[in-house]
């Protein structure tokens, strides 16, 4: 095999002229091949699956044991924005993408716009699987199109509030139920030398989760063109709220995911974190000295008595364009993300929180968690998951949006500009980026 590869590489020069012409049109061949039909392949097949989920091999091994004729080979790489998405785009351009790939919800529209996804709606059992999944996740993989399914939801990140039950109790501060309470509590905590939260300047998708909770929408798509709305009423409300918290020095501004940030939690400087379900593990490992002192409550609300929740993160398993075996790939994707054994295995190695309704009932989610004083924290998240607005739409260039807004947000936390101004400039740079990529956009 080695030798034949050398020979092939030797022939490369001759093929290059061909390459230059073939590549320019490669991406747009055979539009809409799927959707109409989806037939099983003859004989045994081997599927390739690229995922950066740690330990996903263990779940795949279960499938491979049960399905000798459909073997799945796991390939890995850095997380999506760390390079794997870029690799997918290169591979799609070259026509050698893996059969299946992990794609986060916020990157789905990008792959759809670049025509990188197979429509697996016609494959056996896929359309019928809708009922198994949390409603908002399904709308993310269909883009609201009829007879279309472009991926199977894998995991979600319903949001809630992690808080230091011990500190709140000792200080005699009530656990905030509204954002107004939250700000009042912030002032009291600040008097004691702590911070209620850390404003994560670079986690724009966390900020999006807050906007999502408030009922805002950043993108809309009517089939003709995209509409960008980073400065809508709800977004403005959320931005001004946090701007005020920053200006009054009521929140810390450590760069998230650094050791500084972990240390601030570990030393009890920061009292709460409004975050997603997977954050439970982040705190447990980042702030080990605070074990047993945390608890989880629903997100504070904009209207007293409401129960809206946001979502931060979550992935899908998509069948990438050009797969020779979309039928088998779709079956595997559905199994991986709905089978109890597979979900348990992935939860064990990578802390995923399943996107299926039944997933929330896995035994592992029914237990009290010691780090949270024995609270059955997943009940809070399961409830939150049901309260996530299904209409939120991601745009086709989210990496760019995150980058541009984060650039402005980091200015805002260090005192130059405001969060709202960062969103305004993100609004215009996003429209420019869409135009530059020839994606129709309403100005």
């Amino acid at each position, binding site marked *: 095999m080695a030798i034949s590869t050398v020979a092939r590489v030797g022939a490369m020069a001759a093929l290059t002229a061909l390459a230059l012409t073939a590549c320019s049109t490669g991406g747009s061949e055979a539009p809409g091949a799927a959707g109409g039909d989806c037939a099983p392949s003859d004989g045994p097949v081997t599927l390739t699956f690229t995922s950066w989920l740690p330990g996903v091999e263990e779940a795949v091994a279960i499938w491979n044991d049960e399905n000798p004729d459909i073997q799945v080979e796991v390939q890995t790489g850095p997380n999506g924005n760390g390079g794997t998405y870029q690799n997918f785009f290169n591979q799609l*351009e*070259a*026509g050698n993408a893996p059969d299946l790939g992990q794609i986060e919800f916020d990157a789905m529209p990008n792959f759809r716009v670049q025509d990188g996804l197979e429509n697996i709606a016609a494959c056996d059992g896929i359309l019928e699987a809708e009922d198994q999944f949390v409603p908002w996740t399904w709308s993310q993989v269909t883009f609201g199109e009829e007879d279309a399914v472009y991926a199977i939801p894998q995991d979600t990140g319903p949001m809630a509030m992690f808080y230091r039950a011990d500190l709140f109790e000792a200080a005699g501060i009530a656990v905030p139920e509204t954002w107004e309470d939250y700000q009042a509590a912030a002032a009291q905590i600040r008097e004691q030398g702590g911070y209620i939260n850390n404003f994560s300047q670079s986690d724009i998708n966390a900020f999006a989760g807050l906007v999502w909770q408030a009922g805002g929408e950043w993108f809309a798509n009517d089939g003709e063109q995209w509409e960008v709305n980073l400065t809508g009423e709800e977004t403005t409300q959320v931005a001004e709220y946090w701007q005020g918290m920053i200006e009054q020095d009521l929140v810390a501004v450590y760069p998230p995911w650094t050791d500084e940030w972990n240390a601030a939690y570990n030393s009890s400087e920061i009292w709460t974190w409004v975050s997603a379900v997977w954050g439970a593990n982040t705190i447990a490992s980042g702030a080990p000295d605070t074990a047993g002192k945390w608890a989880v409550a629903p997100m504070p609300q904009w209207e007293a008595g409401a129960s809206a929740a946001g979502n931060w993160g979550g992935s899908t398993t998509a069948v990438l364009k050009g797969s020779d075996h979309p039928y088998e790939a779709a079956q595997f994707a559905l199994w991986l993300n709905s089978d109890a054994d597979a979900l348990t295995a992935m939860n064990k190695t990578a802390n995923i929180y399943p996107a299926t309704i039944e997933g929330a009932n896995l035994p592992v989610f029914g237990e009290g968690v010691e780090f949270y004083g024995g609270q059955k924290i997943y009940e809070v998240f399961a409830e939150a998951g049901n309260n996530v607005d299904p209409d939120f739409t991601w745009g086709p260039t989210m990496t760019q949006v995150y980058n541009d807004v984060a650039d402005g947000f980091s200015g805002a936390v260090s005192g130059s500009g405001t969060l709202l101004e960062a969103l305004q400039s993100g609004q215009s740079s996003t429209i420019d980026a869409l135009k530059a990529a020839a994606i129709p956009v309403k100005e």
Partner: protein
Amino acid sequence: MTATTASRRSAEPAKPGRSAKTVKPSKARAGGHSGIRESAVSRTIAMAVMVVATLYFLTPIWWLFVASSKTRADFTTTAPLWFADFALFENIAALFDYRNAVFLRWLANSALYAGIGALIATIIAAMAGYAIAKYTFRGRETLFNVILGGVLVPATALALPLFLLFSQVGATNTIWAVFLPSLVSPFGVYLSRIYAAASVPDEIIEAARIDGAGEVRTFFTVATRLMAPALVTIFLFQFVAIWNNFFLPLIMLRDESLFPVTLGLYVWNTQVSQIPDIRALVIVGSLLSIIPLILTFLGLQRFWQSGLANGGLK
């Protein structure tokens, strides 16, 4: 650029044999009898500069070593530049144990890509540089300038075209996709041209011709020996370049078992926020990944220096 450097060089390593041989004893002498003139003050200042520089260069590496020896809890809570519970071997064991010792596999891959890649790259670059230095042919300068121009191109620009190229022959995600492009070292051609012009006298080539040796044989038996210091230098630089490169493997490889160690550590580093325990592995892995390079330096540097001193006419 070539003109000045080449003419300077031709005056210089031209006689590396002589110069270096005389440098050493004369230095020893100078050190002895200039002791009065080079006052204790300048000596002290010089040593002080050296010590400060050493602290600057070695403290971060020391920090990495100390950090690798700590348990996860001690890492954030104990003094960063001194040991707490010495857990280096436990950490190394955990690293080797993680995912079926994939880290060892990465180390081996890096050694393969960088070792064999740099060796072949050195030979190829030396041949090209030698030919450009010692033969006149039409387009010689143009060819040389085009090769040098290769240094100007940003790696990000080559990424996608290279990927598409390898895709055409179905060779992405194979060792060849990483190995073959790293055989090209424009800087190596540049260095070996300069050294060949300076350290391989035309008379020797003529003499070999008169003895009836072929051109290619003359290169491999005579010229490479004269150019040895340059060849070791090119090898060293290319070895480091391949070892440190993670951009090309990042684009080309999907199969974890083919990763070089830098890409593997990069991938783990992107997973730290998901699985914080990996951070300890990244730190101890970083330490282990630079040890082979430092060993290569130690081994080759002596060779390099002795090459500088003894190369040239034998």
